[in-house]
């Protein structure tokens, strides 16, 4: 089941979706043992921005039919906080495949996901990541629906190509572009990323969505999420993910990390059947933190 992805050797094709697994918090919750038995073949960080962000006011979550709306707002320690405090703890994660005497331990490379509101900001982020050996690859978040800038860059092929081109030569590490699904033609955006120099694309991010407070809750009807709107993830979006990954795979030469509503090995196989090289698990980890390992085992 081991795979090669943009030059990285991975134990298996299952990784986490950015922002859906915090390796440091999980180690606090589940103990140091997790570091040698990580449930994913690579660790994708939550989105990092240049400056620290608190994120959106609560409530940040709404349970939707067969899914979840989040309006987290990219809280993070900022680039320096991440590089100084978190990254050293993220280095050295390993995963185990197979059972008993046949078990093998594989390193879990770190993929750092970054977002900036301009090409300059993104370039600064990519340069800083490039300088750190603990980082194996960089994922550009041009698709987060919670922050205005992410949206606009990722949904417009011309802008997207320019941004990717602007950061491309700032690193020799694999550059993954995480596409926005909130666009008329995701394949055009993917092609733009490819032309700009991306080594891979990942999709889908969450679908722009909204929730109102329960009728009982307020004087008048009000938005539930502190951030106003949010992003829909989980099984509800799986059919959209399948369509978008297929549409992108039909046009692109570079590899694809497919995600969106994956809950089982069968779902992962479907994304791979339409062209994904790796599959990321997002929301399902919330329901079952070991699901990444389970899927890898059952593939």
């Amino acid at each position, binding site marked *: 089941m081991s795979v090669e992805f943009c030059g990285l050797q991975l134990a298996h094709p299952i990784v986490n979706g950015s922002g859906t697994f915090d390796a440091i918090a999980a180690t606090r919750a589940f103990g140091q043992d997790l570091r040698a038995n990580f449930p994913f073949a690579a660790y994708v960080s939550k989105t990092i921005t240049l400056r620290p962000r608190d994120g959106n006011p609560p409530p940040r979550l709404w349970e939707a039919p067969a899914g979840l709306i989040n309006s987290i707002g990219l809280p993070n320690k900022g680039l320096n906080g991440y590089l100084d405090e978190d990254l050293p703890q993220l280095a050295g994660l390993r995963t185990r495949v197979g059972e008993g005497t046949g078990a093998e331990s594989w390193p879990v490379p770190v993929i750092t996901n970054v977002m900036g509101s301009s090409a300059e900001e993104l370039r600064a982020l990519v340069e800083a990541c490039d300088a750190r050996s603990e980082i194996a690859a960089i994922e550009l978040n041009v698709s987060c629906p919670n922050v205005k800038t992410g949206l606009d860059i990722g949904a417009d092929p011309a802008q997207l190509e320019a941004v990717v081109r602007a950061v491309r030569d700032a690193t020799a590490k694999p550059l993954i572009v995480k596409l926005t699904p909130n666009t008329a033609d995701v394949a055009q955006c993917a092609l733009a990323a490819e032309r700009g120099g991306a080594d891979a694309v990942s999709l889908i991010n969450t679908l722009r969505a909204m929730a109102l407070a329960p009728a009982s809750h307020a004087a008048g009807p009000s938005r539930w999420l502190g951030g106003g709107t949010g992003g829909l993830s989980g099984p509800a979006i799986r059919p959209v993910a399948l369509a978008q990954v297929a549409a992108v795979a039909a046009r692109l030469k570079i590899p694809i990390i497919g995600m969106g509503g994956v809950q089982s090995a069968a779902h992962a196989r479907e994304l791979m059947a339409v062209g994904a090289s790796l599959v990321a698990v997002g929301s399902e980890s919330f329901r079952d933190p*070991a699901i990444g390992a389970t899927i890898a085992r059952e593939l």
Partner: protein
Amino acid sequence: MSATPIARRLLRVTANEQLGAYRVLRAADPDALEPRPGQFAMLSAAERWGGGDEQRPFLARAFSIARHSGGESHFLLEDVGPGTKRLCELRAGDELWALGPLGQGFQPPRDGRRAILVGGGVGIAPLAILQDQLSTAATLATPTTTGTPTTVLLGFRDQAHAHGAALLRDVRVATDDGSVGHHGLVTDLLVAELDGDPHATVYACGPPGMLEGVRALCAARETPSQLALEAGMACGFGACFGCVVPKRDGGYLRVCVDGPVVDGAVLERVEEPMGGALLAGRA
């Protein structure tokens, strides 16, 4: 202490009994780690989790571990929506998924302070295991072996809910409608206690209004308070950043990994999480 495994456990329900307006759910849980009082578990029914008119629940739900003894975990449940409804329906023999114990529990009282436990509604659950441990002083490592002197004050809406008080021992009860015990708020009882002897640590769990009352009372008296918070949770282990509450000094804490029990001093106030902007409507 070893750590909670990342794998969920499939538990078999051993009993699900009514206790006034609540249910006490017990499940065989031989592989669970010994929980610290105040820790919680993420629960979901193994079957029929989801579906129905609103296609919910989808995520697991957080529940305080009310007790863990004899290889069984106990939970106190109140049916407030589709997830709790489904768990309340479980019968002996049914299966449920559990992840935990999770989060930060209560800290033992320091400086020889006595413990005042203040619970509101279903929030009394973590106080049961806390009372057990304070009375034996087994895990909270107080200097005495006879246990910490403990006062338990519980508030309920009405008599049906006040039956829940049977989960603890030697309790004093307040009810909103005066049907049992003191007619009024449990914080009225707390004021009297603190006025009598402020050398105490207050442990509280309950609805936001009550917790805020406790926090403010303790802050005014410089009495240490440990508050078990609630927040909507998607994961329970720090993955989603969804369960935040604002900190006094800015930013947010994640209730699931930085709490649920927090020092009252880190909060500006305890608020019901209210939605975002009111909708303006259209002309």
